[in-house]
């Protein structure tokens, strides 16, 4: 297996709280990797640290062949590593469609120089991504809301919009923070299929935090278990399901 992401001894503290406390694991290219652990285990903090919106106190994060733990967020995103938020951060004062269009990478129309010097290229790019944006909205079943303000969406719909938005970036690694929370159960099954299809068709790798363990067990090739800021186990869904340490962690038993 080739590694796409490697997290080495990452520590991130808030005041006295060691939210992530020396976590290490790797994510294989083209895999769907689950990241599970009880509330407060440090999963969201780890996501923020990998995506660059928080800087680690120590440790290394390697994406592809480059070290990214000191890079600013936007450069990590442009390199193809993007995240969604546990509480989706869609731009509520823009339309759903604009939210998706916004995520397009390398848009000549997003630079003043590009607008002035290459207006044709900017318009052509905008036309191309408009089509793509509608496809992605159809994928998450938000097509009929395209022109509504994103602020009018429900919590679950916002998560779907967030997903469509990161896919717009054509990433190679997507971190999803609890993508199923608040999403209509009827849609979950379909979403799972879509994620697997995106991985198959576009070679996108997923690292997914999810409390719905059935979902994780169905989707993931490999599962990373965190507790109290540390990675306590990495294995296949089958191995994780029967491991006592996992049960202990969820039940809050001391070792």
């Amino acid at each position: 297996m080739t590694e796409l992401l490697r997290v080495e001894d990452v520590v991130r503290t808030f005041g006295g709280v060691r939210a992530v406390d020396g976590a290490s694991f790797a994510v294989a290219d083209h895999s769907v990797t689950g990241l599970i652990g009880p509330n407060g285990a440090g999963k969201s903090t780890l996501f923020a640290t990998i995506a660059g919106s928080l800087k680690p106190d120590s440790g290394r994060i390697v994406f592809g062949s480059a070290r990214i733990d000191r890079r600013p967020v936007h450069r990590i995103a442009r390199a193809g590593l993007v995240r969604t938020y546990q509480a989706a951060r869609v731009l509520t004062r823009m339309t759903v469609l604009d939210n998706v269009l916004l995520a397009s990478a390398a848009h000549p129309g997003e630079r003043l120089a590009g607008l002035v010097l290459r207006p044709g290229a900017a318009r052509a790019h905008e036309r191309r991504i408009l089509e793509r944006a509608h496809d992605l909205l159809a994928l998450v079943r938000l097509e009929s809301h395209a022109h509504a303000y994103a602020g009018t969406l429900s919590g679950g719909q916002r998560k779907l919009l967030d997903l469509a938005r990161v896919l717009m970036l054509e990433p190679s690694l997507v971190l999803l923070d609890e993508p199923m929370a608040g999403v209509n159960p009827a849609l979950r099954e379909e979403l799972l299929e879509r994620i697997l299809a995106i991985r198959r068709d576009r070679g996108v790798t997923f690292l997914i935090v999810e409390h719905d363990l059935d979902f994780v067990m169905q989707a993931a090739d490999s599962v990373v278990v965190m507790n109290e800021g540390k990675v306590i186990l990495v294995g296949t869904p089958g191995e994780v399901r029967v491991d006592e340490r996992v049960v202990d962690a969820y039940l809050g038993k001391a070792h």
Partner: protein
Amino acid sequence: MSILASGGFWAFVGVVAGIYTILALGLQVQFGFAGLLNFGQVGFMAIGAYTMAILVVKEGWSTWLAAPLGIAAAAVGGLLLGLPSLRLRADYFAIVTIAFSEIIRYVATNDTALTGGSQGTIALGPIGTASQYNGQWSSFEARVQHALGFSSSDATMLVLVWGVAVVLLALCWLALRTPWGRVLRAIREDEDATASLGKNVFAYKLQALALGAALAGIAGLFYAWEFSFFSPDDFQPLLTFFAWMILLLGGLGRVWAVPVGAGVFGFIFAGTRFLDFAPFTWFASDQRAYLRLIIIGLIIIVLVLVRPQGLLGNKREMVLE
């Protein structure tokens, strides 16, 4: 009442409203587009006006070279202010921008050799001479007046200022509708989320700050040309607050709300001079100047309290947080 009826007076009010439109448009780009709380806008206006006047008087430059340089200097001022301060929290940024404009004013007041000091531009040249920076502008204005067949220079200035203002408004309106403007609108709402979509938030903010500063520089040029003389006292923080009031009056994030706000502001500012009925007649004329500012202060407060998106603003797109 005679002045009130005179076209010249209202043309003057219109010119001032046009200058304020350009000044407040700069704030609209910075705050209405990108969410930057700039309270030092008047500082950029001063940079534009002084750069032009100094280059014309001291260096003998042509007005048509000095004016663009004034605008560029204001934009560079925006870059220099933004580089260290745009990373600060919004409240610190607001304080730093006011401090910036006050530094500009202190320097203009005290660096007599450069700016003429508190005596203003009249002292720009060698001692004993009353210097003028607007010779070329005046003859240009006269030619335009002749070409238009106007009888008054006030009306000519009105056309010139508003001609430029309308072009700038249109450009900003267009810019907001481009993908570039879309990124700014996203930053104004949630800069962290925008950064995680791969946008270099800092660079965009810097651009917005510098562009807004350039607009203030243009306002400074027209201010200088309209009054043929200025001094550091013309660039009190009060002007920035007027521009904010115009923004709030018009509407946040809406380009065409700016001239509406400026028009209402001009009307309040000029119109209150003519409140010659009770209770206003109880006050002397200098006291009425205080009353006028009290009214403006109250308007700001009331707008913040009851209409935080501005009169023409769209509540779903932007409100004052």
